[in-house]
Each structure stands twice: as structure tokens, then as C-alpha cells.
């Protein structure tokens, strides 16, 4: 039971990160119907920017008050990563708008390769370790098993991650449901041509969708950096596929679905590693993806796609 509770907490933390990335996939897929393959790498870019800002603030400028530092890092990382998201869309996807469906998928894969190698060249291929910054936590339960004592802890780090995710989720849901921008996005999602005819600037709306997705991915990258303390140029690939799985599981195009899917994937991965085998945890995630797509193509909260002939 103790072990289960600890795994549950870890799973929710990891799931929050996946959920944040998944929102980027789900929004882009909803609006232009393509898998933004480079989104995982935008997450990686966000992690690297966070690292650089953090180091600049602490080691170079000498700020010591951690909450302020973290807040500044978060905002700067979101801004700069958004610029990356915007640029990727502008260079690789916008010229192909209205082209056949495979073309943006290929440029997305190309962009993913470009981003990974760009970071590898400019920042080096070796992993970047960052010592844990936020220590301590709340001890929820102490128990002893045959193996030894077990302590269920909810660290401050995990609290920060889960709370931030919840706050951002709320903000973005409000943004989509209550603001003119959100309305324009939903309009483009339903019928791009009609939205354009009614005066919605479709290109701008799509760009903003990418910017929003990238900003959330930056948050996820920052969380990942703080939680694991190790990043390299390749983290985006696996995280991206898992987040995409999360988006599909939750029902692609649905914001709450992405979050739910993220949490489920996080839990599945953590429990699989905890109870079965660590080596095959990725297989578990990939199998879920296949199973969901085959038996439940519209996901848990998604609208079923109606095919018109």
C-alpha cells in the first residue's frame, strides 16, 4: 500500500509533465490536423533554455532567492521557447498549408532532426546534470515491510509541478473557452475556410496555437529539468511520443483529454516500472498507443470523427 501510494504520487508528477506537452499536440492536431512531430523537441529546447537562464541568474548574476529565480526562469523560458515554436511553424508548416497531407509530416520530421542536431552542436552531446534545487517534502506515511522501511514522501518539487500544471490548465481552458482568441481557434478547428470568410485571421490563429503549445512545452521542459536534473538533446523524442500517446488516449483535439491522457500515461509508465520491469516501460507506453488507436480511435474524451464520402 505504501509502495503503491508513492508510485501514485510519482506517476501523477510525471503525468503532469506529459499532459503539458500533450496539450501542444492536441491543439495543433485539432486546428490543422497534423502531427507536429517537432513538438517533443520544442520541449527539449524549453528545457535547455530553462537551464541556461537558471545558470545565468544563479551563477553569473548571483541571485539567491529561489522562488523569484524560478519564476523568472519560467517566464523567460516560455517567451523564448514560444519564439522557437513560432519559427518552426513559419518556416516548415505555413508554406505547406493546403498542400497534401504528408508534406508537413515530412517537414516536421526534418525539423525534429534539425532541432536535435542544432542543440547537439551548440550545446554538446553530453548530458547536463543540474543538482536538485528544491529539497525537502512532506512525509505522508511511514511503514515497514519485509524488505525494509518505506517512507511515502510528497516532495515540494512534486507539489510545485502538480500545482503549476493545474494552474496552467485552468488558465488555458479559460483562454480557449472564454476569449476571442479561443473562439477564433475553435472556429478554425471546425472549418478553416468558413472562419477565414468570416474575418478570422487563420494564419495568425494557427501561429498563436503553436506559440501557446510551445509555451506549455517550455513549462514541461523546465519541470523535467528540475525533477530529473539531467537533460540532453535527445529527451524530446521519447517524451514527445509519449505525450502524443497521451493526447490520443485522451481524445485528440480535447484539452481536458490531453491532461487526462497525460496523467494516465504517467501512471501506467510508473506502475509498469514499479511492478513489472523498467526496461520495457517504453514498450508499455507504445503498446497503449497502438491499442487505443485500434480499439478507441477517438480516445476517452474525444469526439468521434464522422467520415463524409
Amino acid at each position, binding site marked *: 500500500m505504501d509502495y503503491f501510494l508513492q508510485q501514485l504520487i510519482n506517476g501523477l508528477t510525471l503525468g503532469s509533465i506529459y499532459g503539458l506537452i500533450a496539450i501542444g499536440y492536441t491543439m495543433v492536431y485539432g486546428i490543422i490536423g497534423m502531427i507536429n512531430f517537432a513538438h517533443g523537441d520544442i520541449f527539449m529546447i524549453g528545457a535547455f533554455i530553462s537551464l541556461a537562464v537558471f545558470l545565468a541568474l544563479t551563477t553569473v548574476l548571483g541571485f539567491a532567492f529561489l522562488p523569484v529565480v524560478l519564476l523568472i526562469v519560467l517566464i523567460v523560458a516560455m517567451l523564448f521557447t514560444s519564439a522557437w515554436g513560432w519559427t518552426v511553424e513559419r518556416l516548415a508548416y505555413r508554406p505547406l498549408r493546403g498542400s497534401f497531407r504528408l508534406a508537413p509530416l515530412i517537414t516536421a520530421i526534418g525539423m525534429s532532426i534539425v532541432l536535435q542536431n542544432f542543440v547537439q552542436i551548440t550545446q554538446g552531446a553530453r548530458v547536463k546534470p*543540474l543538482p536538485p534545487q528544491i529539497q525537502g517534502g512532506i512525509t505522508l506515511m511511514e511503514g515497514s515491510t519485509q524488505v525494509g522501511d518505506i517512507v511515502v514522501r510528497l516532495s515540494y518539487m512534486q507539489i510545485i509541478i502538480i500545482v503549476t500544471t493545474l494552474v496552467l490548465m485552468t488558465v488555458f481552458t479559460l483562454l480557449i473557452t472564454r476569449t476571442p482568441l479561443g473562439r477564433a481557434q475553435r472556429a478554425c478547428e471546425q472549418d478553416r475556410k468558413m472562419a477565414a470568410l468570416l474575418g478570422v485571421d487563420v494564419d495568425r490563429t494557427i501561429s498563436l496555437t503553436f506559440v501557446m503549445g510551445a509555451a506549455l512545452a517550455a513549462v514541461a521542459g523546465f519541470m523535467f529539468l528540475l525533477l530529473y536534473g539531467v537533460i540532453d538533446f535527445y529527451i524530446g*523524442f521519447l517524451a514527445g*511520443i509519449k505525450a502524443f500517446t497521451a493526447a490520443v488516449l485522451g481524445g485528440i483535439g480535447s484539452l481536458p483529454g490531453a491532461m487526462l491522457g497525460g496523467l494516465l500515461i504517467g501512471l501506467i509508465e510508473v506502475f509498469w516500472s514499479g511492478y513489472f520491469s523498467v526496461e520495457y516501460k517504453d514498450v508499455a507506453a507504445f503498446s497503449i498507443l497502438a491499442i487505443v488507436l485500434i480499439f478507441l480511435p477517438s480516445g476517452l474524451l474525444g469526439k468521434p470523427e464522422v467520415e463524409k464520402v
Partner: protein
Amino acid sequence: MASPEASIPASVQKPMGAQGRAAAPGGARSGAGEGGLAGSLRDAALAAFLAGVLGFFFIGLRADIAPGGLDLRARWGAWIVSILVVFVGRLALNLFVFRTSKPVTKTIGARLTGLSDAVPGLGKWLTRALLVFALVLPFVVTTFFSSRDRQIIDLAILIMTYVMLGWGLNIVVGLAGLLDLGYVAFYAVGAYSFALLATHFEFIGFWTALPLAGLLAAMWGIILGFPVLRLRGDYLAIVTLAFGEIIRVVLLNWYEFTGGPNGISGIPKPTFFGLELSRGDDGMAAFFGFEYDPIQRFIYLYYIILLLALITNLVTIRLRKLPIGRAWEAMREDEIACRSLGINTRNTKLTAFAIGAMFGGFAGSFFATRQGFISPESFTFLESAIILAIVVLGGLGSQIGVVVAAVVMIGGMELLRNLDFLTYIFGPDFDPVRYRMLIFGLAMVFIMVWKPRGLVATREPSAVLKEKKRIGADMVAQGEGH
């Protein structure tokens, strides 16, 4: 929303139009020629500013491992250079491509298409010339470039391998319209089946294992094809990607069977009707009474892969004329119509997966015997992406396109190894090979934006009424799943 697809005739025009439109907020786009300079400058300045923002934390700063944790180093020089490069590049693009009435690219494009129109049957002759060139290549190389013959033939083998993989994948993606992002799985199955068979059973050599490997790969094609029968388009792509990764992870973790990350070594070389290509008395050179030279082994490998690739091509060409090939193409164009007309789409899809996988398996066996050592490292998603890129960049469904794209992309990447002179410009630390994949990715994006239908823009229809003529690639559906 762009204008309707059908009204745009040449694929070249679309990206240009989109670029120009989006660049408009930067400056006045009146009269493309004369008033454009100020706008071009402003636009280039914006691009440079953006480059500065993007590069700030990557080019300008670098986090490195230092004694007391991580340390941040500044590289302002490189940062400023990168901004200047973007400024000049964007300005040049604005002046010569985006904002003039006579873009350079259009002139080149028009000349190229003009060329193929002017000489009827150019494509056919080009194909024949390429075939002859491929057949005599080893002799040309050993005679004229004997100092670097090994390197060149090695490169030719590599390109040929990708041509074969591209042709194999072309059956699945180009003909049947099933977007497969996990093709490398079948390559891996082929490689591992041969490696395991050869290392466990003494009597199995390359030529006995080859059909077995193809058969096993085809079987896996069917196994992995079954669950995804109902999926289309992007979803199909992502599930096949997942399958590819699952196979790789299993190969990586199943130590007892596959050797895990250590891989399998000591895979035998192919023999020539039982004769080994070695120096000994029972070698092929001694048997036929000519001088042994290590290069012979490479030439032999080259001819094997050439033969395998040509078989792939021939089978594909013949299959297109058979009912099954017709069914593939019909399914690509419209699956629902296809089913309504009584075609069994399940079997059609499965045969496409199986036959595509079989050729992937052949190529995998060849890869194993060429390397003599395989490990899961060689079968990452990147390989799938490269193969798919070759097929799509060449022009889906176009056999010659695959060759062109493989030569451009793989040959181009290898060229970077020979750019030693760049170290004189950028200093001794400069290693162009590091930029290989970056340039590969950029080329993928650039070629796709420039020619979304691939480098070869025409297709041969498989069924014709009255006369046979080439059609534009826009007329062909491409795995869009509708």
C-alpha cells in the same frame, strides 16, 4: 486558408506565394522590383532579430560541465556572426527570390522542366544511362580512382542499400498509400534473422538465409499489419512508429536471444557459390586463378546489393501490372470506393505490408553480412525517417525519384566528410561531419517546401486509355487516407 489546391498548377509556386504573403507585414510590397529594397531590408532585419532571439541561449551561451557543477560560457562572437549570416541570407533571398518579379528559382525550375519537355523520352534514357553506370561503376572506380576505390565503392553500396530500402518502402507508401514510419523494424528483423541463423547454425550462409530472412520479415509485416488495418494517415504513421520502437526496445533488452546492446558479431560474409572471397587456396581468386585483392570483396558486395535492388525494382514494376498492384493503387486513391467495388482491402493492405517488409528483410540481411556486426543502435527511428524522406523527397510512387533522392541525400551527406578545406577557413576544430544531420534535416525541410510532390514531379499511370503519357504528381493521391 490557402486557395483551393486544384487551381495551383505548379508545385513551385505555392511556397513562393505563401512566403511573399507572409512577408508582407514587414514592408510595402508594391511593385515587386523597385520599391522592394527598403521592405527587403526591414524584413531581413526582422529575420536577423528573430535569429538573435532564437540563438541567444544556444549559440550565445553554452552550459558546460565544470568542476563545481555546471558553468555558463558566453560566445558572443559566434552569436553575432549567426545574426549577420541570417540578415545577409534573408536579404539575398528577398532581393532575388521572394520580392522580385523574376525569382531565380523559378528560372531554374522552368529551365529544368523545359529540358524534360524538350527531349521526349529523356526520363527513359536517363534511367538506362543510370543503369549502365551502376553496372560498370566498380570497374570505372578501380581503373580511374584506384587510390580511393574502397571508399567510393563503400559509398556506392550504402547508396544502393538506401535505394533498395526506398524501393521497398515505396511499395507500401507510394503504391498502397499506407504511411509507414516503422519500416526499419523489418530491416532489423531481416538483419537479426540472418545474424542469428548464421551464428547458431553452421550450415546456413548468406544465400540460404536470405530467403528465410525475407520470409520472416514478410511474416512480421503481416503480424504488424493486422492490428493497423483500420487506421489511416497520421494515425497509421504513429502506430507503425510505435511498432518500430517496440521491436528495437525488445532487441535491446532480450539479452539471451539478441545479445542486447552488445549486438551480434562474427556474421559470415557472403560466398560465391560456396567459394569464399579470401586469400586462401579455397578462395574464389585461387579457384578462378586470378590475383586476390581485398577490393574484390567490396565489388562483390556491391553487385549483390545492386542485384537485390534491381529485383526489388523489377518486382515492383511487374506487380503494378498485376491485379494486386492495381488494387494497391486503387486503394491509395480512394479506399471506400475501392471497397465498394468489391476489392478485399484487408488482403490488399496485408500484401503491401508483407511485400514491402520482405524487401526490407532482404536489405537487412545484406546489411548484416556487409557489417559483420549488428546492434539495435543501427535500427533507430532516424533510419526509418531517412528512408521515408528518400521516398517522399524523390516523389512518392516514382521509382527513379528514389534513386535521385538517395544519391542527393546520402551522397550529399558523405560529401561532407571530404570538405577538409573548410578547416582552413573555420579553424582546425571545425568538423563538417558534425553538421551532417543538421544539413540533412534542413534539406528535408527545404526540398519539401520547394517541391512538396518530390523531386520527380511526374508519374507513370499504371492503367491508361488509348495513349500512354506521364501525368503530374498532383494527380496522384499520397497516403492521405480518404
